[in-house]
């Protein structure tokens, strides 16, 4: 992705008013517009995503026919030709449309101040629809995420919002796009928080929720309120069934590893090939994927939602399900590594569903009294791969709950997802999106690391109160004696109103030089007081006060006026050095 010319895109109001002027004449404008625009962004994203999905379906019917099946020659040449066209479009017209869209949105957020060009949105729409519709093994969710983020970026730029606000719009649009694609707002919000923003931020959460809800309302107006899959009855019949789900978690963890390794191996090698090969890599990938379809497994072509649905409803035997999962890993690795625009979500769900249904069918066959429905296993399998491959554990759990609309599946989901997540993490420490980031030469923050950062608190640098404490009513002379006896460089003054003051010996000496020794020390003090800090506050919250105060008392939250300890600049810095 190239650095966008932000200045060139500035609109008319920007030429007239600077941000400083705007701040002065309309200080609450950004905040108000932010919420209103979140709704607009949600609606626009929802409409675009619906159009995007319809476009994919139309292209599929027009190119592959209404019922593609093995042995049709069009399965061979349609993805290949579409791959060549898409590659040419990406290379010549829409270079930013390459890839899934998740990392591009993160890059927009962290590097380009939320900038995603209109051209990128158009390019992503056209190239992804063409690639996915013609049978490349990719999904529409990640492109929808980027399209949503792009819409948000365009809308925000038109209204000349501040750079800080502009940056926040990318995740808002991303949530809207993903929510509409999934028809699952909670999962979309969580994914954006887990994978794009990296942490819960009150500044953006409200708008993310608003846009996601708006987009889902639009999507449901068209598609109906049903989830994207028809969910069969989901039950946990016997606690022993959890063993089967644990097995599914292990299988999913290993499958996620295989998938990650395959992508991590092939993608950089294809990218390192000469420039001219970039024009035909998608075509070759399309041909290979088409061959898989031609020789007996057309199910792996495209996003495969209907195949997931069929697997959930027990339409395949376990061996076929297993083969489909393995072939989907291969097909997606080929399609994605070749740089064809399209997402990883649908293939991940496909592989997970096939593995889950396979495990479920196998166990139903050999342990008929132990297992529940095949659909439950397929559903949990989707979450398992989501947790193991995309490494979004929270989203994976909520996605399954939201898609199934059934809380009773919570135990199997949590168990299987966590096993897959931990297994995948243990075997492949770097998450797949981060692998792609490194391969693309970017240095985006690792969301997994951000999530797991152990924040330091004041209690981590706290030391016992080793300095004298003087009452404000005591005289300067008295205070001087106490300080001299302890040889402390600073001491605390406790004032009548419960406030505190930290004084250095130098300050005390200057008071004793100008005032009489009997003067109560509180009369000598300037009006400022020590800040009230508590042990659970972040360690860096103390830093702004050290230029003024030699030490800071840390108060007990339960007992007002009780000091738990003190921190000095030296203590804080030492604590940071220990990390």
């Amino acid at each position: 992705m190239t650095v966008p010319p932000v200045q060139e895109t500035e609109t008319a109001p920007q030429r007239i008013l600077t941000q400083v002027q705007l701040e002065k004449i309309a200080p609450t404008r950004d905040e108000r517009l932010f919420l209103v625009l979140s709704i607009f962004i949600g609606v626009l994203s929802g409409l675009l995503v619906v159009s995007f999905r319809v476009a994919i379906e139309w292209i599929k019917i027009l190119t592959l026919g209404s019922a593609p099946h093995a042995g049709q020659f069009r399965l061979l040449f349609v993805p290949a030709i579409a791959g060549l066209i898409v590659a040419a479009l990406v290379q010549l017209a829409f270079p930013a449309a390459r890839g899934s869209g998740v990392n591009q949105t993160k890059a927009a957020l962290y590097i380009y101040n939320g900038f995603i060009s209109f051209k990128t949105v158009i390019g992503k729409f056209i190239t992804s629809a063409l690639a996915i519709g013609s049978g490349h093994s990719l999904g529409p969710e990640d492109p929808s995420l980027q399209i949503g983020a792009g819409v948000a970026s365009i809308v925000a730029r038109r209204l000349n919002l501040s750079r800080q606000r502009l940056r926040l719009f990318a995740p808002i649009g991303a949530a809207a796009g993903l929510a509409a694609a999934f028809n699952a707002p909670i999962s979309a919000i969580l994914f954006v928080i887990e994978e794009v923003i990296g942490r819960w931020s009150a500044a953006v959460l409200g708008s993310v929720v608003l846009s996601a809800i708006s987009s889902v309302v639009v999507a449901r107006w068209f598609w109906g309120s049903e989830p994207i899959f028809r969910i069969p009855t989901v039950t946990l019949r016997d606690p022993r069934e959890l063993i089967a789900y644990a097995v599914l978690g292990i299988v999913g963890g290993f499958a996620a590893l295989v998938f990650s390794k395959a992508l991590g191996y092939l993608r950089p090698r294809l990218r390192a090939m000469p420039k001219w090969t970039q024009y035909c890599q998608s075509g070759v990938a399309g041909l290979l994927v088409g061959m898989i379809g031609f020789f007996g497994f057309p199910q792996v072509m495209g996003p495969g939602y209907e195949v997931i649905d069929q697997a959930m409803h027990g339409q395949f035997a376990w061996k076929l399900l297993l083969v489909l999962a393995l072939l989907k890993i291969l097909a997606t690795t080929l399609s994605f590594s070749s740089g064809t625009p399209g997402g990883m979500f649908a293939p991940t769900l496909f592989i997970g569903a096939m593995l889950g249904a396979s495990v479920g069918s196998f166990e139903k066959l050999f342990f008929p009294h132990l297992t529940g429905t095949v659909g439950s296993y397929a559903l949990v399998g989707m979450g398992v791969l989501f947790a193991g491959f995309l490494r979004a554990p929270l989203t994976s759990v909520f996605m399954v709950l939201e898609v199934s609309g059934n809380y009773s599946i919570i135990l199997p989901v949590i168990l299987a997802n966590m096993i897959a997540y931990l297994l995948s993490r243990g075997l492949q420490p770097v998450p797949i999106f981060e692998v792609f980031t490194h391969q693309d030469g970017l240095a985006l923050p690792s969301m997994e690391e951000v999530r797991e950062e152990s924040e330091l608190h004041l209690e981590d640098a706290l030391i016992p109160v080793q300095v004298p404490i003087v009452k404000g009513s005591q005289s300067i002379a008295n205070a001087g004696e106490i300080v001299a006896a302890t040889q402390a460089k600073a001491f605390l003054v406790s004032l009548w109103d419960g406030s505190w003051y930290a004084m250095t010996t130098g300050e005390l000496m200057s008071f004793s030089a100008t005032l009489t020794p009997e003067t109560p020390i509180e009369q000598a003090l300037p009006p400022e007081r020590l800040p009230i800090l508590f042990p659970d506050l972040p360690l860096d919250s103390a830093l702004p006060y050290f230029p003024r105060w030699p030490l800071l008392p840390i108060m007990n939250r339960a007992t007002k006026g009780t000091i738990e300890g003190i921190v000095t600049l030296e203590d804080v810095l030492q604590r940071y050095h220990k990390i």
Partner: protein
Amino acid sequence: MSVLQLRSALTPEERQQKQKLIIRDSLALLSLFAIVVVLFFITLFLFHSFSVHRQELAQRWRTRGEGALRAGKPMAAIDALRSALAYAPDDENLQIELAEALAAAGRTQEAVAYFNTLLDSRPGSGMINLQLARLAAKQGEEAAALEYYETALDGTWEGDGYIRRREVRLELAQYLIERKRYDQARNQLLIAAGNAPDDAGLEITMAALLEKAQDPGNALHLYKKAIQHRPVRIDALLGAGRTTYALGRYLPAKDFLERALNHPDFEKEPADLQLQYRDMLSDADHILLLYPGPDLNVRDRAERILANRNTAQDRLTSCLSTKTVIPPELQALNNQWQQIPATLRRLQLEQDPELEQKIMQLVYQTEEVTSQQCGTPTGNDALLLKIAKAPEAVEQR
């Protein structure tokens, strides 16, 4: 208050700029709204055309699938129905048809898995349980098949539940007959017959099954009911003839078989069956000529008894001649015959009904014992043996 303070802090030029900004923002939001409206209608148009096309495709593939299923091409039906389901995933009938196609194609495992999944979402569905019963029966899982049949009987059926339940019951009875569980089959059939409407075709079907379940008595009852309908069906007459014959009721058997043989449709029956029924009628005729029934006058009755005695004694003599060592049963029989006066006159018999009865008992006993000791009899011996099985039934209507 703070807003007022802010307002008052603005210079006239800034206030003008603020107004312009408000107008610009309003226009921007309005244009955004206009874009949303335009995009909405474009999306609506696209979506509508796509939805209509999906419905067309679903119908097209469904028609193909059903056609292939009817034509006995289950593999083609599977492909077509799967395609139809991709465009109409919630169509329950399509789902069941696909599972049926899977079963018909011999992909039993897939079909079972599919039906099981369907059953999970609709556990009380009679149709799904019936399909699972058929698959279980096909796989030789008798217990599971019976359980699914029972659940199907208690399950829910759309619209014609009453008729479908009866059909399931008859299918279950047929399955039980195949498994030689005649008592259970008979119970199912009697329940079905008890609730069935007065329909000749149905009565004949159930009667035929009852015959197979070795219950000719109840079968005859249903055949008789079917015969009440006009025009009388040939299969009802044949069934009634067959069952009365099997019950040893040769007098009504003769009537039914005569009516059947005179029925215009009899000639349409297969030749071997025609021959079989003619033989049956002939046997019934002969049996009635041999049988010393109570309705005969004393003279004719005595003559028949004397003739039957001669037949039985000849059979015993012939049987004894084949044995080097006489079995005790035959010896006992022979001793009994010795106690009967060797030269019996018709008049003697006419005057001694007890003797008549004693001789006929001995005749029947002789035919039964000799058939066990010396093989299947022929001619009048065979006919007497038939009478021996239920002598009191011969002329029972």
